[in-house]
């Protein structure tokens, strides 16, 4: 089994708060790896260290053997890492279709392309690709809607389409089903499962919804107060006393 992402000794401190404490993680290629943990455990912070939004105080993040630390967000994306944010990050003023065509163009043309006189209408391949992904997510009837006018769940699905259209090697999903209806959540599970199986995309998924986690995850890491307290296959996580304590302890 090849390792897609290897996280070694990552530390991150915000003032007096140790948000990440010597985090180690091994994510296998082509697998879905879930990260769970109570609110404020440092899950999003960890993803921020992967995509160049934050620079950890120490540690390395190796993606296919290359260190991602110190590289710029667009370079990391071009290396094949796409991210779906916890609070939807979309181009609100643009249409749904445009939102998905942008990452598709970035995937094809790279970080910069001065194609100022080529009509967008002639980008039929890019358009088809974007429409296909939106269809997979059940959004084909919303192509020309302004992204800002959509529901929270739809914004999430849109952002997922933005990630998927890039055919990334590694897809990072931060609570992809939060704010979605039950039906949409199930649909999302199906889509992610299908994509995981058919295209072999490695995924890291942060989720509070255990139904989603246990439907998808090949492996689960549990984070509590910045520390990985368990990393195992789903069946073993449920019965792990440390995990139960972290969740129950967090509730008090």
């Amino acid at each position, binding site marked *: 089994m090849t390792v897609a992402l290897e996280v070694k000794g990552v530390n991150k401190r915000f003032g007096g708060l140790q948000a990440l404490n010597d985090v180690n993680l091994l994510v296998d290629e082509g697998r879905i790896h879930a990260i769970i943990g109570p609110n404020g455990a440092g899950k999003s912070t960890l993803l921020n260290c992967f995509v160049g939004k934050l620079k950890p105080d120490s540690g390395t993040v190796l993606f296919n053997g290359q260190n991602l630390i110190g590289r710029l967000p667009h370079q990391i994306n071009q290396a094949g890492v796409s991210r779906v944010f916890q609070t939807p990050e979309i*181009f609100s003023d643009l249409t749904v279709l445009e939102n998905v065509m942008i990452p598709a163009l970035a995937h094809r043309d790279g970080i910069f392309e001065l*194609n100022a006189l080529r009509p967008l209408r002639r980008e039929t391949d890019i358009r088809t690709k974007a429409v296909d992904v939106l269809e997979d997510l059940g959004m084909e009837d919303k192509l020309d809607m302004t992204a800002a006018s959509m529901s929270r769940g739809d914004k999430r699905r849109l952002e997922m389409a933005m990630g998927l259209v890039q055919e990334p090697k590694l897809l990072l999903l931060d609570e992809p089903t939060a704010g979605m209806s039950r039906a949409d959540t199930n649909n999302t599970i199906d889509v992610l499962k299908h994509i995981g199986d058919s295209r072999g995309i490695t995924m890291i998924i942060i989720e509070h919804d255990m139904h989603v986690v246990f439907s998808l995850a090949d492996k689960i890491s549990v984070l509590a107060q910045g520390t990985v307290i368990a990393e195992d296959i789903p069946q073993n996580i449920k019965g792990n006393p440390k995990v139960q304590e972290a969740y129950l302890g967090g509730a008090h």
Partner: protein
Amino acid sequence: MLGLNRNDFLMLLFVFVLVAAAPIFLNPFPEGSTFAQFNAGYPDLMQRFLIFGIFAIGFNILFGLTGYLSFGHAAFLGAGSYAGVWMLKLLTINVIPAIVVSTIVAGVFSLMIGYISLRRSGIYFSILTLAFAQMSFALAASVLTPITGGETGLQTTLSDPRILDGAAAGTGNIPAPSLFGLEMGHSWKVAVGDWLWTFNVGYYLCAFVLMIVFYISIRIFRSPFGMMLKAIKSNNERLSYTGISPRPYTLAAFVISGMYAGLAGGLMVSMDPLAGAERMQWTASGEVVLMTILGGVGTVVGPVLGAGIIKYFENIFSKINDGLLEQWFAFMPDGLADFMVTIVHPFVGKGWHLSLGLMFMLVVIFLPGGLVGGVTGLFRRLFRRRSH
């Protein structure tokens, strides 16, 4: 057609007709009639409509698409003007090299200023561009006098070397710029009944250039590049997590708009071969911001309209004096006429800024999309109501 969709092509056609026929419909009132004062069909005024239209079209590519508000674009217009005059002095009185070189010089200049200013965004970016432009203005007026002519400005003279064509014809000491011998100032006057129409060579050269750069701007708006610029305005940070480096895109937009400004400067000196430092001052930079916002930020045709309206106010409203007002209201009883003159007086003549300011406020408050945005919004609403 021309790589445009139907709507854009119709708009291009509309602007073409507007520009081509402007000498006719900008003179709607017969010579000598009461309202002849409102006629705007004079070559130098119409040239200004188009030149500032070009300036605003370019500015809109930066501000309208990326949202980066430059307060220093007059510096590029000024740089283009100086470069243009130098071409007319050193090379030839033919305007083509002047126009081409002014565009290139402004492009290089904006590459330097843009490269530094774009390290910041938002208000800091605006302040940086403002600082650079004021610096350019101050330098042009003082230490750069050998290049810029200082406070008197730079102008052509009959004794300039002009290595390609030597001496040039002209009235007094100022040679007349021309296009292969056809003088920019040359006009054909056509009288139809009481109406007088002036068709001017310089105006139609400006019109030709405007049509080309307007077309290019539509193409930019509808290109993948243009979409990236809109994405920068919408969510700059997200774009970098999408694998795009926003900086080269904004810099390209900055340079393109700088080149439009330089082109406007080059045309300006081709019409009237004189360049002064005040052309770089912040008021001139602010003016193009007003034009763009008034017409409609981020709309394709808005800036042209905004430029036309502001130049019309500046040149026509400013000429209405009390004598004229009294003439207009003469049909009223004495007391009422005096009253009307008193009421209208602050809004015209030297008070034209007041009318413009009020209009600007109304547009910004009630039509956030500018005049063009407002009109399209209205049409859309009417259309939707009908389709229901």
